[in-house]
């Protein structure tokens, strides 16, 4: 192999060759002169006889090269030189591509991590989520045991519920999020311990028989500092001793992607964790968060579903009282079955579509800039054609330039998207919940970004192709490149209009979203979050049960009420609009006698509150009375309902006080008060019925204190913490202003607004570059004409009109189309953003103003150039 020395000797070969050719022509010239020609004639004749010297020299050199590779390299060097010569164009193009490809990479990264990539467990393809109906939690524990025993489609099935417990290692108790799992959960997932061992099916021997804990790797790392002696240690969970068995492998966090638990505990110990003796055996209590199953080899999901439903009909027959509507379905794990899968998929598909549009707009934009450049270089191209360069060669060179640009943009965009995705992966939107978006990028993302870069490079490189293929070098060299830019509608114009339209769609959408968000912040929640604090205390976690719970709650309320500056204190089992959901209970009209689920009147939201709750939360009482501490177990059962409850279930709003309705167990409840409607689970929900029961008649151990006070939140927090610590120093407390707590509820619309805002900004940037390119091009093409007009006395306004009229016309058409499309698109937005209405004068005005501002910004520099034309200088130059 002698190609390596050849590379080094090549320079000499080339020099020899040039010298040789020079000498050849010289010798021929001398010969011709000897034959009697003049020196000048002889030189010309010798050169003619030799042929195209440059071309032949190049062909000779090519012999020594790897032809394609080296000519591509040469093209690349030439392209780089060209790009360096116009840094403005290069920077604009790379930046535009960075944004567009980066946006696509980010959206695809999220799509990839949440939807496309299988769950991080062995043999994820055979793992399925079993869902019943369409609620968040839809299984009861006895149902699970029956399904597991009787079904024939699955190797094994496991369940888990999510809860929170106070974990006390001896110092500073803190809340830990736990998966309460069936003993076989980790085995069904085929996970192996990182340290120690896991609990198994065989560890379960009835209620509270398995006081074991498995730590997640992350929790072990942060709370036990990677201490390997932790295995076998006894800690207290809600004041009950539990033994730490082992640590799960790094990266494993259960079967719900968004939710990272701290520990795993056996569900058979649920009573110790929650204080609830009944629920584990109650078939009607559907509180299990998720059921997963390992499909038997050879069984299709459809067969397994059919089998599950036959078990279900058996259960319905045997336990008619506990039946629940809905059938069994199977879904992919990771996003809690179809519950989150559907919305996430829809949202991400929408985003992907939008970012794809952005990339297309970027390509259209760069394509037109590129075409303008190609036109500016038409003399150069013509010269090269005339000198014998082939059209293919020139096209290849242009493509080299465009692909080089797009690769640079693609790499920059990819780096930016990797940083953003990394940041997203560790971001926790709500401090109170271990929720996060695990979207670390992988090879797929890199690949997609690179492919997108190449495709877009080719896409915008294609735009000037026709222009070059049609170029007639003879004409261009002779006449200069003034022709061609006439009144016709060119492909470039269409591209620009499309792109402006896309920008207008994005601007419209983001404005609609922002307005919707503003509205949702100000809408009537049915309570007043300003000047209210929430204190989240779980008395079960703190070890209280039975009679001691209400007594303790009363003590806490009294203690806080005594703090100066506190206006009122109430408690509620779970505050409205607090994610993930709300308690619900089935009710019947007073006349219903058959209390089976199918006869139920409704499933209103259910709140257990203390007498002062309505005052503390700012919920206005419309009729009747609030509760008193005398509404206890000795008094008749009473309730306060909202307007929707009154009109929908009791059939009347004005005289609702004094009417009765029935609970699931047949208890008659008298309505004593009527409160305003509100929002209970999310802001976009329609009006839903809600009912409030006095805490003493309907106890709940999970208590949120609502404290209304105009005092400074920080001082108030400190004061509350100290009085509550005086009562019980081991209680886990979380105190936050209610308005802060609401951020979780507003999260989806906030995210939608931010994404749309970012996309809108990128669209705007793209439009600016597009219009700028177009205007600059139009001015530079007609500079000579403008100069002549100025010389002949045209007014500034007329010059501007001549130079930029077309750009403005295109802008107007594009904005009009975009606005119309944007208004149509916002109908889609209405699903995510509360009260997103497109027919909002503010939005319309905003869009028009924004587009006009974009136009002004983008044509500013070309307009100045057009106005500063000095006819004398210009005409002299030509």
């Amino acid at each position: 192999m002698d190609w390596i020395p050849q590379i080094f000797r090549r320079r000499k070969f080339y020099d020899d060759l040039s010298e040789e050719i020079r000498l050849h022509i010289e010798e021929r010239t001398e010969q011709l002169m000897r034959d009697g020609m003049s020196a000048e004639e002889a030189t010309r004749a010798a050169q003619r006889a030799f042929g195209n010297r440059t071309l032949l020299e190049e062909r000779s050199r090519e012999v020594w090269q790897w032809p394609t590779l080296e000519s591509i390299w040469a093209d690349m060097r030439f392209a780089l030189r060209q790009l360096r010569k116009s840094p403005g164009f290069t920077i604009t193009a790379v930046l535009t591509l960075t944004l567009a490809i980066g946006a696509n990479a980010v959206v695809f990264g999220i799509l990839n991590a949440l939807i496309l990539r299988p769950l991080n467990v062995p043999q994820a393809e055979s793992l399925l989520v079993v869902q019943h109906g369409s609620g968040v939690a839809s299984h009861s524990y006895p149902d699970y045991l029956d399904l597991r025993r009787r079904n024939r489609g699955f190797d094994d099935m496991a369940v888990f519920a999510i809860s929170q417990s106070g974990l006390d290692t001896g110092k500073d108790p803190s809340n830990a999020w736990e998966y309460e799992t069936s003993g076989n959960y980790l085995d069904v997932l085929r996970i192996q311990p990182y340290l120690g061992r896991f609990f198994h099916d065989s560890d379960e021997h009835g209620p509270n028989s398995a006081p074991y804990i498995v730590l997640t790797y992350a929790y072990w790392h942060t709370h036990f500092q990677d201490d390997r002696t932790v295995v076998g240690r006894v800690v207290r969970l809600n004041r009950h001793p539990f033994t730490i068995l082992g640590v799960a492998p790094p990266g494993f966090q259960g079967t719900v992607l968004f939710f990272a638990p701290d520990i795993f505990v056996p569900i058979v110990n649920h009573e110790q964790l929650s204080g609830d003796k009944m629920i584990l055996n109650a078939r009607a209590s559907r509180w299990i968060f998720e059921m997963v199953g390992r499909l038997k080899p050879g069984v299709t999901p459809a067969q397994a579903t059919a089998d599950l439903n036959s078990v279900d009909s058996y259960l319905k027959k045997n336990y008619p009282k506990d039946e629940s509507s809905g059938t069994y379905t199977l879904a992919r794990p990771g996003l809690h079955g179809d519950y989150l899968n559907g919305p996430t998929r829809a949202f991400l598909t929408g985003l992907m579509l939008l970012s794809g549009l952005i990339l297309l707009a970027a390509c259209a934009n760069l394509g037109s800039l590129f075409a303008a450049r190609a036109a500016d270089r038409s003399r150069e191209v013509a010269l090269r054609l005339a000198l014998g360069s082939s059209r293919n060669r020139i096209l290849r060179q242009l493509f080299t330039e465009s692909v080089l640009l797009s690769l640079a943009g693609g790499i920059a965009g990819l780096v930016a998207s990797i940083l953003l995705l990394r940041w997203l992966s560790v971001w926790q939107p709500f401090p109170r919940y271990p929720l996060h978006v695990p979207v670390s990028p992988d090879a797929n993302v890199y690949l997609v970004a690179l492919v997108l870069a190449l495709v877009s490079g080719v896409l915008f490189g294609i735009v000037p192709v026709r222009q070059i293929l049609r170029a007639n070098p003879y004409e261009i060299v002779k006449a200069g490149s003034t022709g061609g830019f006439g009144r016709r509608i060119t492909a470039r114009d269409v591209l620009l209009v499309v792109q402006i339209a896309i920008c207008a769609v994005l601007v419209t959408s983001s404005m609609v979203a922002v307005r919707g968000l503003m509205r949702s912040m100000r809408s009537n929640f049915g309570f007043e979050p300003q000047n209210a604090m929430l204190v989240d205390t779980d008395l079960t976690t703190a070890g209280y049960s039975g009679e001691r719970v209400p007594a303790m709650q009363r003590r806490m309320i009294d203690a806080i009420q005594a703090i100066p500056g506190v206006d009122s204190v109430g408690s509620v089992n779970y505050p409205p609009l607090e994610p993930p959901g709300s308690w619900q209970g089935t009710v019947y009209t007073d006349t219903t006698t058959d209390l089976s689920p199918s006869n139920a009147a409704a499933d209103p939201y259910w709140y257990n509150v203390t007498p002062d709750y309505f005052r503390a939360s700012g919920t206005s009482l419309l009729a009747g009375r609030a509760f008193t501490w005398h509404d206890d177990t000795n008094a008749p059962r009473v309730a306060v309902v909202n307007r929707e409850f009154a009109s929908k279930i009791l059939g009347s709003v004005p005289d609702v006080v004094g009417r009765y309705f029935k609970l699931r167990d047949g208890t008659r409840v008298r309505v004593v008060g009527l409160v305003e409607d509100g929002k209970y689970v999310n802001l976009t929900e329609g009006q839903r019925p809600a009912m409030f029961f006095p805490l003493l008649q309907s106890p709940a151990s999970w208590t949120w204190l609502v404290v209304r006070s105009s005092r400074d939140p920080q001082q108030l927090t400190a004061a509350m913490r100290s009085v509550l610590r005086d009562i019980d120093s081991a209680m886990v407390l979380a105190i936050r202003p209610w308005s802060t707590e609401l951020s979780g509820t507003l999260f989806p619309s906030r995210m939608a607004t931010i994404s749309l805002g970012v996309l809108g900004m990128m669209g705007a940037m793209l439009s600016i570059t597009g219009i700028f390119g177009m205007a600059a091009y139009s001015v530079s093409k007609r500079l000579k004409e403008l100069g002549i007009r100025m010389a002949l006395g045209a007014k500034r306004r007329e010059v501007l009109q001549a130079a930029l009229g077309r750009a403005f016309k295109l802008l107007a058409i594009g904005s009009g189309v975009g606005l119309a499309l944007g208004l149509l698109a916002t109908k889609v937005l209405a699903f995510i953003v509360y009260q997103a209405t497109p027919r909002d004068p503010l939005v319309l005005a905003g869009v028009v103003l924004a587009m006009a501002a974009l136009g002004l910004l983008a044509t500013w520099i070309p307009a100045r150039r057009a106005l500063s034309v000095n006819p004398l200088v210009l005409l002299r130059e030509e």
Partner: protein
Amino acid sequence: MPVVNRAMTETNSRDLFPGALEMMILESLRREPAHGYALVQHIQQRSNNLLQVEEGSLYPALQRLLKAKLVKAEWELSSTNRRVRTYQITAAGLRCLEQQISSFERMFEGISLVLNPGRATTS
């Protein structure tokens, strides 16, 4: 128009079949080493000026031969005291030339048979 001219020169030079020029160069060099200019002269004279080879097209062919090590080149002074780069055929070049000539002759014979069937049978 320049484009048309270029196209025509290209078709002219392609009148030779691929490898013909290389073969003629090798054959000339087999008789005696020569530099580029002398080679052109030689080929044109020997062909009674029937082959109008564009002088420059010799050089790509020479480079191909150099690369394939069928010829070698050396700078020296000519008899007329010019600095020239003289090409010399190598052993490998000789072998290659023989093969090419024999395959060319067979091809030429075949073509003649097709073009002049009568003469082929009489000979």
